[in-house]
């Protein structure tokens, strides 16, 4: 008999809070096997875990649709709010103003954002409400079985819906036009880029729009679709290679010749490594031009198109107290007897 070699169990990887990644899971997904949305949920779990977010400090929001089911599938110890179709922006605005210490992560879809919710979306962007806004964009309505959404390609064909005769809306362009301070596009199959973008979006003090192409394996994953896995894998063109350096990371960033560093509000950084042409994500005109060209040429260009970390967030603009409004006591919110007497005397 030969002695079996002793093996020591590999210690699980822990994050800054001393937690394993599994602690950031939610309920089991009920989406179709292979759904792009599940990959995005996995990236959110990973980003939250790696950044060491305390789940009690996070609130999850969504509207209605397949994408909007996903907040149940990540960060199980965070409060979640699956709201109305296209109305996540207003709900999250109210909640994040009521408690300014919360970290908001919202997940929406292309129908939820670009069709029924385009109005609220643009006003959320305009107000710069501090939260992450992920659009899981597959160009099709899944839950109602395969109708076109407002981001579906022109002349695209779908099994039941036929051919789409309308021009698509580009979520990143819409965000930019509404004065967004963080506009990015990614692909559900690009885990590394998505990780960096999600972390930067969480660190950003303002609204961060992440338009993530997320194939619908059931209704819109055929070759002719620009929102399919095949298309994404073959044609994704990253603008740059992204990495996120958290504020607590002791590593001093030495900017290489082909790298640009964007400092975020909390001291963390997003590092952009050049691929091909130089791209300055603080140049709004460049962002417009780049997005419009990509749209016209039906290119899946990914990366961060625009970032402006200095604009005050909605919560900053409101000039509210540092204590969350929801936690103020009666003594802090009911003016004095004298105050009423004074106002009465004026009447």
């Amino acid at each position, binding site marked *: 008999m030969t002695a079996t070699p002793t093996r020591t169990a590999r210690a699980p990887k822990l994050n800054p809070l001393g937690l394993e990644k599994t602690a950031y899971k939610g*309920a089991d997904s009920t989406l179709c096997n292979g759904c792009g949305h599940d990959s995005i949920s996995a990236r959110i779990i990973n980003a939250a875990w790696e950044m060491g977010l305390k*789940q*009690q*400090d996070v*609130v999850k929001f969504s509207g209605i649709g397949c994408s909007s089911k996903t*907040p*149940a599938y990540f960060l*199980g*110890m*965070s*409060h*979640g*709010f*699956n*709201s*109305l179709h296209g*109305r996540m*922006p*207003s*709900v*999250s*605005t*109210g*909640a*994040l*103003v*009521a*408690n300014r*210490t*919360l970290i908001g992560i919202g997940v929406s879809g292309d129908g939820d954002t670009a069709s029924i919710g385009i*109005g*609220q979306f643009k*006003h959320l962007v305009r107000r710069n409400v501090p939260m992450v806004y992920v659009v899981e964009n597959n160009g099709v309505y899944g839950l109602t079985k395969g109708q076109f959404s407002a981001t579906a390609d022109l002349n695209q064909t779908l099994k039941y819906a036929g051919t789409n005769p309308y021009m698509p809306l580009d979520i990143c362009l819409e965000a930019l036009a509404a004065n967004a301070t963080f506009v990015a596009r990614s692909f559900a199959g690009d885990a590394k880029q998505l990780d960096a973008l999600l972390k930067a979006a969480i660190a950003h003090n303002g609204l961060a729009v992440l338009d993530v192409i997320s194939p619908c394996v059931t209704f819109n994953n055929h070759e002719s679709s620009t929102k399919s896995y095949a298309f994404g894998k073959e044609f994704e063109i990253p603008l740059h290679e992204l990495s996120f350096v958290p504020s607590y990371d002791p590593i001093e960033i030495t900017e290489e010749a082909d790298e640009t560093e964007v400092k975020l509000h909390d001291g963390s950084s997003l590092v952009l490594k050049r691929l091909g042409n130089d791209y300055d994500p603080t140049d709004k005109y460049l962002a417009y031009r780049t997005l419009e060209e990509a749209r016209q040429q039906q290119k899946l260009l990914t990366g961060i198109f625009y970032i402006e970390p200095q604009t005050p967030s909605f919560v900053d603009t*409101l*000039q*509210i*107290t*540092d204590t*969350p*409004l*929801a*936690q*103020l006591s*009666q003594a*802090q*919110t*009911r*003016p004095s*007897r004298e*105050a*009423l*007497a004074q*106002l*009465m005397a004026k*009447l």
Partner: protein
Amino acid sequence: MSVTVQEAPAKQVSQWVYNDFNLNVATANGSGSQTSNNLLIRSLYKMGIPVTGKNLFPSNIQGLPTWYNIRLSKDGFLARRERVEIMICMNGATVAEDMESVVPGGIILYDDSLPVANHRKDVQYYPMPVKALVKAADVTYTLQRYVANMVYVGVAAFLLDIEMAEIKNALDWNFDGKPKPIQLNWSMVTAAYEWAQQTLVNDQPYRVRRMSGFNEGTVLIDGNSAGALGSVFAGFTFAAWYPITPSSSLAESMISYAAQTRREPETQKATYAIVQAEDELAAIGMVIGAGWAGARALTATSGPGISLMAEFIGFGYFTEIPAVIWDIQRMGPSTGLPTRTSQGDLLAAYFLGHGDGRHPVLLPADPTECFEMASTAFDLAERLQTPVFVLSDLDIGMNLWISKEFSYPETPLDRGKVLTAQQLDAFKEEHNGQRWGRYLDVDGDGIPYRTVPGTDHPAAAYFTRGTGHTPYATYSERASDWENNLQRLARKFETARSLVPAPILQEVDGARIAILSMGSNHPAVVEARSRLLDQGIPTSYLRLRALPINSEVRAFVERYERVYVVENNRDGQLYEILLTELPGLSTRLVSAAKCDGLPLSARWITEQITQ
């Protein structure tokens, strides 16, 4: 200078009429007449005279006809009254019909530049040389139109004996002590007064005189300001709104009052947020989000806004999120009659949403109740974890009412069943071993416990969804889960019956009939009952202050042969609700409903009962 046109022979006044008449001012809107009308009503009020002002204005910025109706009643009847004794005509577009509206024996003051075709013989005329007086006052062209309306203040003050010192006080108050506009307007008022004194023969019978016994301990205020002040003192922390007449002034008053009283002493930062949303749908979405996160959140709107809020309010009922919705009711869908009053949203508010659902509805009758019910609404919304309506209307919201001085709210804020991290730890022990479930009814009142985001406890989180859910807030499409949840919500609504403000009853010995009414109809009902009593018909009265009704309402209806349900809408919406809730008593209920955009009058109510 011309003297009074006296078609009727000059006469000795045989009987003076003191503090008991109706004064109607016809102007074009946007001409600054509001300031003049405010001076009149405020100085009368400060002379101790029971007075009420109803502004009948168009949905327009400038140039369309506006009337301001000031009723003086020494007996304290403050409903809208149809008879007009004194007419002030400043608008050529309506002067003919305005002059016709005066009762025989009445008087008419008018801008002498208006086209007046013929004079009636049964009224007295007082033409006012408005142009000449304005010209003499030497004011810049842009201000002429505004000060022109001060002419009728001065002339009316002379004819009616309004104390000039009170007019000056009202002017100081109106312009918050700013010397320039005060001086400008005051010089016009006094010039007109002096002109009248030197020129007019004052042989008309209407006079005012200082009195006491009614206005003490009151304030003159509109309901929207009162609701705003009430909300500020109710500890609101979040408001979202979208401009819509007649509710905008509620939000705007909140902005003003909160800025004065709700700043953190050390930092001067706000202890509240008020957000002007992109529409009513977003406004209620923000309120639902804020309420969910633990804020005291409200919105103010009117009928069309309520329609847009339907899905969110139904959702709020089902997901059990506190929210307060003020509906300052106006007429009709879309534009409707946006500057006219009604009680037409009662059914819509009570049942708003799809699927089953009902909402507590508070029914303030005057600004004082607007102030008080602002607190009640929050307490109920948080206690019951549900959207709560406050149904005011344009008449209360935008008109000035003599209102009992507001008392400082003595009851502590009721924040409802919100669990802290420590309470979560102790929950099982305190509830017979049951672990906490967001929609679990452990107390038997249908009201579960909730946590708010940010609670530092690993078990605090739950997932809010409109989808079917179990008592532990997990997803469920099981039939029994859905039904059990609906039944619990119905139980919760039964709990609400005992928590909402009780009706106010005035029962009269020997009365066989009664009036049941709500909200702004109150002054008209009070006056109608007095008239009916004069005619030998004693009536009892129940003023409903909230839905759902409680057992007192049933017992009251049971005691009378006939109960007239008086309301300001076409279909008798309250009547319909009562038929549903008291089916066995339907033969006793009589609907008295009317909807023409105006507050109900005592005459109309009286006729419903006597004819």
